[in-house]
């Protein structure tokens, strides 16, 4: 085996891709070639050296790693609370917007109906909060006869 072939096999050996026969041939070559033997030793040392370096960098973190479960639980709780807060905020933010929309609709209720001239006092705006993320906003025309719901928003998606 020449040195060029040996270098290819040294890399393959480090990757665990050599057959037993290839490994034996390589060993024969390395026994008589100090340059290739040095290359082989250095390549073979990369894994253990990297693990040693990682070990040094990880030193002293055992206690923190033991507490990882607690850290993760606390983090999950924080994220959950943040999401709950923003969901609560989203639930309440749209209600004033819907009320404003309802009031403006009330003020600009179209002419051409049989109840003109328009008179705001004949309308009710009902806002009803419900337990979920939704609330109901209803614009009710009280009219002269029976009350009539003319616009209803059932939830934030409507």
């Amino acid at each position: 085996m020449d040195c060029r072939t040996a270098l290819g096999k040294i890399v393959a050996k480090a990757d665990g891709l050599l057959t037993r026969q290839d490994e034996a041939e390589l060993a024969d070559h390395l026994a008589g070639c100090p340059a290739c033997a040095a290359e082989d030793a250095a390549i073979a040392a990369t894994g253990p050296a990297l693990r040693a370096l990682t070990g040094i960098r990880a030193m002293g973190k055992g206690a923190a790693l033991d507490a990882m479960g607690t850290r993760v639980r606390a983090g999950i709780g924080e994220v959950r609370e943040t999401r709950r807060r923003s969901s609560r905020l989203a639930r309440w933010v749209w209600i004033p917007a819907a009320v404003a929309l309802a009031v403006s609709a009330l003020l600009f209720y179209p002419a051409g109906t049989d109840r003109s001239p328009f008179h705001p006092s004949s309308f009710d705006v009902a806002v009803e909060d419900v337990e979920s993320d939704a609330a109901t906003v209803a614009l009710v025309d009280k009219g002269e006869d029976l009350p009539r719901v003319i616009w209803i928003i059932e939830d934030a998606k409507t």
Partner: protein
Amino acid sequence: MSEREKGGVPDDALIRAAVAGDDGAFGELVERYKGRAFAVAVGIVGDGDAALDVVQDSFIKTYYKLKEFRFGSNFYTWFYRLLVNQAIDRWRKSARSAEVPFDESWLSGDASPPDSFSYPRTPEELARDRELGDALQRAVDALPEYHRAVIVLREVDGMAYDEIAKVLGCSVGTVMSRLHYARGKLKESLKSHRGG
């Protein structure tokens, strides 16, 4: 079944329980993988404290993404994809502004001159050879992020090539080429400090 599942509840069962609201089941997954995850994170970000944050954040993200897990696939390759991306993001943000110093506290006693073919195999041996430790650290830090991820997954975690490919979303050929490059760089740093 993964090594970690032997003798215990399978990952899939824990995931199903966690999705159903059993936080204890998710806690078991954390216990099962935190050590491996930490070693990989340290290898990529190069700092123990930062690695702890990366592991914590990865588990939290995993918890909220558990519903997306495809049963039948490996939990740990799925989790590692998230972990490695999180670690690479962390490393990019730090932008290596402050180099992690080689820990001199590990130096003890007189460092004996190294044998030309002998390389450190343990943290203790590496710590006794400060120059080599520094050189190796520089070589690791200088590796492109995905090359570093590949060699860490292979050498520190012991992952198979096809698993690394799944984690990084690339081909096995790409994994092997990155590994070859990374190993070559580390080898150069080792040899240059042994007069090679």
